[in-house]
Structures are given as C-alpha cells and as structure tokens.
C-alpha cells in the first residue's frame, strides 16, 4: 500500500567548515560567513522517505521552517525526488527555540492532515539538541522512535525498525502513524537526479522574488510546477504566543567564544634528549610507573 511521508528538514550553517571569520568580534556568530547546507541527518530522513515511496508508492512532502533562502534545501529535496515542498517562513517565528519550532511545525503538519509517517534527522548540526523530533511527536500525540538506524519492514500499518541505543540496538514494532528520527548511519542519501536538477533549479518561492512579486511571474512558475508553496504562521493557524521569542522558554543568556587558556605549556624538544627528560619528570612525580 502507498504511504504518505512528511519530512521535516532544516537549513543549517555548515558548522563543520568553520573558519577564522565565523565569529564576530563581539562574540556572536557570523552566520553570513558560513555556507548553509541541508542538515545532514535530514538528508538521511529524506532518503528513507524516498526509499519507502520507491518500494510501496505514495508521496514525499518536505517542509522547512526558515528564511526564504532555505528554499535552497527545498530545491535539493526536489532534485532528489520529493513530490511536494513547502517553505514555512515568517518573521514572527524568529528566535524560536525547539519548543516553539516544534509547535509551528506541528501546526503545519496538522494543515497537511493526511500522513502515515513523519521523518526527520536525529539532530541538527547547529543546535545539536535532538529535541524537535520528539517534541513534534508529542504535540501531534504520535508515538516516536528516535535514533532509527534501519527500517526492517513495513507491513500494512505496522512498522518494524532497528533503533540505535548507544551500546547496541533494539528492534521495535509500532503502528502508523509514527514519527521517526533518522541517524546518519541509516543510509547513503542519493545524489540529485540530473533531469530533476535541470527542471527544479528554476523552482522558487514567492518570498524569493522580492517584496512584491510580479503576479505574471508567479503564474508562470505555477503553471510549470515550479512555484514552491509558501506558508506563514497565519496559514498554519499558529497561536503567536507559542511562537518566536515569546514562545521560547529557553533564552540565551550569554555566548562566549571559546576562551582558550593562556598558553602555559612546557615546551619539550622533539629530540631523544628532550623526550628522555620528559619521561624522567613523569616518572619522578609518579604519573607513569
């Protein structure tokens, strides 16, 4: 039977490629200096959704909450085979912590109404909290399975997965609908398809066309299937009290650049003599026996 999958994806700064100008002099993060990427584990979640569709049929819808430039990852989702992509963008969602973000995403999912599985990456490489997945599940009153490393079987409405528990694994069975968070070890995300890339690199959301997009342009994109759907907080009936800074219980008090201790190390010469003296010192103070 076919399954309708929703994938929650996030565009994140590439924290693995942090260079010297990543930090502003005042200690805040210089996001403009960092390339933005599809959160790696969300790509694994998308891949799992696409594999399910390849085998059983159905649909894959990808939603991202972010600035208009997050459309970059929606296009990447289209290149890989997503059927439908939605940009959830609204200034009033800025400064949302995981609770506010999961609330907004759950409102969007409720608007979609029809789904069998919700998939997202285990965690994002900027926040590293792994909280949004379980919090979305709770808000939708769905069971959750986190740290999914393998989908073992999908039989009607019954799903069997293998979950990573750190030192080992467990096999779990649950009925749909369910939310899964997917680990990097679950699969190897497929690359963009050449034909799909050629077609969808022209896809855009209204917000990318400036403050007053020309209706003719929007119409033209729409008729070619290249208009990325765009929702704001009103479209998903979000209560603003639970969004943005006001909806976020956790507040950043302080951010500090990593303060490295003043260099106070004893320089040891990389020669036999220098090393012998070091070993002697470590034996003298009983560090080594």
């Amino acid at each position, binding site marked *: 039977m076919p399954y309708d999958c929703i994938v929650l994806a996030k565009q994140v700064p590439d924290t693995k490629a942090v260079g010297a100008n990543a930090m502003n002099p005042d200690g805040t993060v210089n996001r403009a200096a960092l390339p933005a990427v599809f959160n790696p584990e969300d790509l694994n979640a998308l891949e799992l959704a696409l594999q399910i569709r390849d085998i059983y049929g159905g649909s894959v819808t990808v939603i991202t909450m972010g600035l208009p430039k997050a459309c970059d990852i929606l296009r990447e989702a289209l290149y890989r085979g997503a059927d439908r992509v939605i940009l959830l963008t609204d200034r009033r969602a800025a400064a949302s912590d995981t609770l506010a973000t999961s609330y907004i995403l759950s409102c969007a999912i409720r608007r979609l109404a029809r789904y069998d599985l919700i998939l997202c990456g285990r965690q994002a490489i900027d926040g590293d909290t792994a909280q949004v997945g379980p919090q979305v599940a*709770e808000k939708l009153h769905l069971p959750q399975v986190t740290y999914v490393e393998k989908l073992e079987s999908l039989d009607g409405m019954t799903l069997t997965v293998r979950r990573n528990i750190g030192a080992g694994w467990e096999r*779990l069975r*649950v009925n749909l609908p369910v939310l899964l968070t997917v680990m990097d070890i679950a699969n190897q995300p497929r690359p963009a398809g050449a034909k799909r890339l050629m077609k969808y690199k022209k896809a855009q959301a209204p917000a990318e066309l400036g403050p007053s997009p020309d209706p003719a342009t929007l119409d033209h994109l729409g008729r070619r299937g290249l208009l990325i759907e765009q929702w704001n907080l009103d479209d998903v009936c979000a209560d603003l009290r639970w969004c943005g800074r006001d909806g976020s219980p956790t507040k950043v008090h302080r*951010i500090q650049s990593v303060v490295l201790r003043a260099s106070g*190390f004893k320089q040891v010469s990389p020669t036999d003599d220098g090393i012998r003296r070091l070993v002697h010192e470590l034996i003298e103070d009983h*560090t*080594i026996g």
Partner: protein
Amino acid sequence: MINVNRQGEVWVFAEQTDSRLSEVSLELLSKGRALADSLNVKLAAVLPGRNVRPLCQDLIACGADKVYLVEHDLLADYQATSYARTLCQLIEKHQPQIVLYGATALGRDLAPRVASALRAGLTADCTDLQIGDYTVPQSQDVHRNLLLQIRPAFGGNIIATIVNFDRWPQMATVREGVMPLPMRDGRATGQVLCEAVSLTPADLPVQRLDRQHAEKKVNLKAARIIVAGGAGVGSRENFRLIWDLANCLGGAAAGSRAAVDLGFIDHDHQVGQTGTTVRPALYIAVGISGAVQHVAGMAESAKILAINSDSEAPIFQTAHYGIVGDLNDVVPRLIKAIRAKA
C-alpha cells in the same frame, strides 16, 4: 508548564535498564546535591519501573534526600509515551524547580517529550550547570537563582549559557562522565515515597521485539593513562603507534571524533563531547588539533601532553607539556625512552 516554585526540589531522573541504574543518573546526583544545597531545597530521585525498589538505597547512598518510586507493571520496559506521562504527572503534582536527565539514548528520547507536554524549557547536553542570576535585556527584570545551563553550540565553536526563567521546571540533559560520580555513603538515610500513576495499555504503542546490548570493549573512564590519536595519525594502520604507546604505559588507547569518523579506531574509544569524558592522570594527545568538542572531554586530565606538528594547534592551549614535531618521529622516541626507564 508549572508555576515558578522557589521551594521546588531538584530532581534527577533515575534511569535504569533491567534493574541496573545507569551511571549517569548517579553522576547527576552529585551535581544535583550541589545545586540543591545552593538553593537550600531537597534533592530527589525519580525512579519509575517495575521491581526496582532495591535501587532506592543506592540513590539515597549517592545523595538523594528522597526517592519518588513509581512502580507499575506498564513501566517494566521504557517507552517514551508511558514514561513521559509518568514524569509529567509527578512534576505537576510536586512542582520541582529543576529536573535533570542523563543524555543517553533513553534520556534524549524522553526529556524532550516531557518538555513538550509541560511546555517547559529543556537544554540538551549541558557540560556545566550552575546557579546564577539573569537580567532580561529588554525589561531589565532580574531573575535570581536560576539554573544556568551551559553547553558548547554551533559545532563547538561557542559556549552558550541558557536560562529558563518562567517556563518551569528548568530541565537539562547531561552526558555521562561530564559530572563526577558521587561518593557512596552506605549510612545515608532518606525517604522513599511510593507514587501512583495512571497508565493504560494505550500509553504503550511501541513493542520491543528484541534488544542486543553490546558491552563496551574499553572502560576509558577507569583508565589512569590514555593515549589518544587524532586525524593527524593518518590511517588505521598508523594508529598502531597509539596502541604501542598505550601498551608500553599500561594505558588505554583512544581517539578523537575525527579519528573515529575516519575509521582509525572504534567509537567505544572516542573521547569528547559526543564520546566519553575522561579525567586520567595522564592524557597524551597525538595528532589531535584540539577542537572544543574534544577538549571538553579531556580538559580535566591531571597532566596533558600534546604532540602535534602544528605549533598553532589549539590543543597546546590546554596541554601541560607540548612537543611540536612529527608524531611518526616523536612517538617511537617516546616509546623507546619509556622502555629504557622501565
């Protein structure tokens, strides 16, 4: 959320699997004790499960003033929905001001679900917890004696202090090994409070078919000497240098996350924020640059020796001794010198 309750207790979620308490729960009790003393409130452990009553004494011996024991057949095996319901019911009833969880696969599955249900704040993977004050920038309102939730963020490039002044309880998860294990006091006394909770089979949508627990191959936390290799070692074959040096010192071999990701050594040997936190008498970092996430896992080692060909490598800022040189040359010399003295 619950009301801001200044008389609220400090709680630690006592995680147990097959009636064995996880070490991180005990570590959290030592930190919880300090926080509770600072706030002048009681420290309690919350222990859901089935046939887990004997564990109460361990929790009390490790510093809990009280244990909220929740025994129920439906709590025999962990599951997010049933355990989250249990925690929520207890939190709403007793209104603790702080709840701490180990950042294990279980804790990271459970804590966000509780936070969502309570609409309370949660900070993951804290590397430090303190009590302090916070002034709201816009209004200049001052909130005293909040839980300061400190953690690296943004790929480890910054340290963030997070607070939650009005959506209580204040909750945080902490990884194993970050806080020290408490001293056990067998003569300590405390209260065991049996709590009832309302659960139905509908709270257990997930069925566990089987589980395989792989015992860790190495106990890094117990090692007195650790020799760790980083990406600079170059290959799994060349990691032999690390094993040789560890062996001649009677120590354990370890690796940075980069080394593990590159396949030089297994994840069980990983030191760092997402690996194990260690405090050995001697930590030798070979070909490790010293990224924050790694340093977070070994900075409290009594003595640190860094070997790196890059004199600018951040690891030298944390080291007590540093050798700037090619590890392929330095490590054999070090092994030779150690064997000569032995």
